[in-house]
C-alpha cells in the first residue's frame, strides 16, 4: 500500500502527503471548534471540485465555466435521496405538498434508494459531460467557444431549476435535511465524522488526479493543451483525450456536490449558477493552475477569505474576488505555486553563492 502510494507521489511527496493528511484528519478535529470544522469541511468539498477543474483547465486547457452544473447534479441527487428518506407519511417531501403535488414524480422515485442515488451523484454528471464534451470537441470547438457554451449551460440549468418549482423546490432549493442514513446531522459528533469522510475523499481524489497527470495519458493531456493540432498530426485523437479529462472533472464536481449536501444541509440554484461556477475557478488560479496542491490550497484560502470578509464587510468579498481575478490572472498567472518556486530558486541560488564576488569591470569579457 505504502509502496503503491510512493510510486504516485514520490518519496518526498509521500512524506508531505502523510503529514498533511495527519494534520487534517487528526490535528484539525481536535483543535478546531464545531463551527469552524464544519466550515473547513465545506471548503474541502469545494477543493474536491477544484482538483477536477485543475485537471480540465490547468492540465487540459479546457476552461469550464459551468462546473456548478455538475456540482449541482451531484448535490441534487444526494438531496433528493435525503428528502425522500425523511419525507412525511405520504412519502412526499415537504416542498412538494406546498406546491400542490400529490404524488412523487417518476424521475424522483429511483433516488429513494441509496444504491441508485449515491452512484448517480457521480455518474450523471459524467454522462452529461461526456455527451456534451464529445459533441463540442469532435467539431474542434475549443478555447473561448467551449467556455461560452459551458457558461450557457450553467445559465440554462439554473433557470430550469428555478422554473420547475414543484419538482425542484425552485429558488429555495432543497432545505431542512436533518438526517443522513439515520444519523442526526445536527449532532456535532456526526458532523465531525462527516468532516473526516470529506477529508479522506479529498485525499483519494487528489491521489487519483496525481496518478492521472503523471501517467502517459496525463502527458498526452498536457500536450493537447499546448498544441492540439500537433498531437493530432502525431496520430492521436485529441477529442478522446479531452472528453475523458472533462468527464473525470465533472465526476469530481458531482462527488463534491454530493458531500456538500450533508455537510451544509442545503442545495439551491444560488450555489450553482455562473457566479459560483466562476468562484470555483479563482481558487485554482490563485493556487497556481496545473499544480494539484495549488488548487487545494488556493480554494481553501479563497473560501476562508470569503467567509471572514463576508462576516465583516458584506460587499468587500465581491471587490476582493474581482481584484483577485484581475490581479492573479493578469499579473501572476502561475499563482502561489509560481511565487513559491521563485522564492525557492532564489533561496537555492543564495545558498550556492554565500558571498557575492566582486568582479572588476576589466575582468569581464
Amino acid at each position, binding site marked *: 500500500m505504502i509502496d503503491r502510494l510512493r510510486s504516485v507521489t514520490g518519496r518526498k511527496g509521500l512524506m508531505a502527503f502523510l503529514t498533511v493528511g495527519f494534520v487534517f484528519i487528526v490535528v484539525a478535529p481536535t483543535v478546531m471548534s464545531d463551527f469552524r470544522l464544519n466550515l473547513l469541511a465545506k471548503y474541502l468539498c469545494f477543493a474536491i471540485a477544484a482538483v477536477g477543474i485543475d485537471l480540465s483547465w490547468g492540465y487540459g486547457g479546457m476552461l469550464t465555466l459551468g462546473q456548478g452544473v455538475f456540482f449541482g447534479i451531484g448535490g441534487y441527487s444526494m438531496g433528493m435521496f435525503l428528502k425522500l428518506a425523511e419525507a412525511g407519511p405520504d412519502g412526499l417531501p415537504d416542498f412538494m405538498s406546498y406546491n400542490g403535488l400529490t404524488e412523487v414524480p417518476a424521475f424522483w422515485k429511483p433516488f429513494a434508494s441509496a444504491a441508485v442515488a449515491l452512484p448517480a451523484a457521480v455518474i450523471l454528471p459524467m454522462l452529461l459531460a461526456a455527451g456534451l464534451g464529445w459533441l463540442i470537441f469532435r467539431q474542434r470547438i475549443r478555447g473561448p467557444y467551449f467556455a461560452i457554451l459551458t457558461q450557457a449551460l450553467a445559465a440554462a440549468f439554473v433557470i430550469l431549476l428555478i422554473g420547475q418549482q414543484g419538482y425542484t423546490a425552485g429558488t429555495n432549493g432543497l432545505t431542512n435535511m436533518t438526517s443522513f442514513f439515520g444519523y442526526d446531522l445536527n449532532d456535532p459528533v456526526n458532523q465531525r465524522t462527516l468532516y473526516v469522510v470529506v477529508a479522506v475523499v479529498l485525499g483519494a481524489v487528489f491521489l487519483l488526479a496525481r496518478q492521472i497527470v503523471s501517467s502517459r495519458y496525463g502527458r498526452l493531456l498536457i500536450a493537447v493543451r499546448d498544441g492540439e493540432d500537433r498531437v493530432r498530426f502525431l496520430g492521436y485523437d485529441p477529442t478522446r483525450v479531452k472528453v475523458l479529462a472533462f468527464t473525470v472533472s465533472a465526476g469530481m464536481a458531482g462527488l463534491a456536490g454530493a458531500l456538500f449536501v450533508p455537510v451544509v444541509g442545503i442545495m439551491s440554484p444560488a450555489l450553482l449558477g455562473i457566479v459560483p461556477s466562476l468562484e470555483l475557478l479563482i481558487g485554482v488560479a490563485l493556487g497556481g493552475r496545473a499544480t494539484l496542491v495549488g488548487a487545494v490550497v488556493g480554494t481553501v484560502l479563497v473560501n476562508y477569505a470569503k467567509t471572514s470578509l463576508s462576516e465583516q464587510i458584506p460587499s468587500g468579498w465581491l*471587490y476582493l474576488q474581482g481584484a483577485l481575478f484581475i490581479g492573479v490572472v493578469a499579473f501572476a498567472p502561475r499563482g502561489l505555486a509560481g511565487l513559491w518556486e521563485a522564492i525557492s530558486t532564489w533561496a537555492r541560488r543564495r545558498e550556492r553563492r554565500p558571498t557575492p564576488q566582486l568582479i572588476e569591470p576589466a575582468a569581464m569579457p
Partner: protein
Amino acid sequence: MDILVSQLFTGLSVGSVLLLIALGLTFTFGQMGVINLAHGELIMVGAYSAFVLGGIAGEGASLLVAIPVAFFLAGCLGLVLERLLIRRLYGRPLDTLLVTWGVSLVLQQAARDIFGAPNVNVKSPPWLDGGLVVAGATLPYVRLFILAMVMASVVGIWIYMTRLPAGRRMRAVMANRQLAACSGIATDRVDLRTFFIGSGLAGAAGVALTLLGPVGPTLGTNYIVDAFLVVVAGGLGQLRGAVAAALALGVLSALLEFQTQASLAKVLVFVAVVAFLQVRPQGLVVLRSRALT
C-alpha cells in the same frame, strides 16, 4: 393569429436587442480574440447613465440625449479597459475572459454601492406610449423604436465597414493581423477604435433596455449569455452572421416560450445551438482562411 404575430414581434424585438449587444462582442472577439465578460456591465453603465440623465433633464425628455451620452461613456470605459488590462493579454483569450469577469464583479458591486441594490425605473417618454395595431395585435411603439434604433446601428456599422477607410482597415486586421501591420496599418489604433465602437453599442443597448424594464446592477448578466450564443452561432466578426443569428435566436426563444414554459425554452435554445454547431462548427458565416487555428 394575433397572438402569433405579437409573439413573433416580441421575438424580433428581443433579437434586435441581442444583436446590438452581440455586435460589440463579435467584433472584439473576431478582431482581437478577446472575450469581454465585462460587456454586460457596459450595458449597465449605459442604462444607469439614462437613469441619471432622466433625473437631471426631467422624466421622458432625455431619451434622445441619453443614447449618444451612453454610447460615449460606455465607449470611454471600454477604452480604459482595453488600455489598462486587455492589451496586456492579447493571445491569451481564456485569461482575458477571467480578467474581464473580475472587472465585471467590481463594476457590479460599485453600481450596487452607488445606486443601491434595488432596481430603479426610467420613465419612457410620453411619445412612445401606445402602439401600432397590425392584424389584431398591438405592436408597442417602444419596441418599434428599439427596432428602428438597431436597424440604424446595423446600417451605420455596415457603411463603416464597407465604405469608409477606417472600416476597411478594421476588416484587414480581422482577416490577417500580421499582414495588415506589414502593409502599414497601425493595428493598435484600429483595435482601440473597434473597442470604442463595440463598447459604445453596448451602452446604447443599455438605454434601449431601460424602455423595456427596470434597471439593476445585474442588468447586463441577464443578456450577456444569450449575446455570446449569438456570437458563437453567427460566426466571428461577421455582420451578416450576427444579424441572422440574433434574429433567429430571438424568434426561436419567443416561440419556444409560447409553446412550452420560459424555463424550458432556455434549455431548448441551448440544445438548438449545440445541434447547430454540429452542422456548422464555426458558425453561420465563416471568414475563409488558411490559418490552422
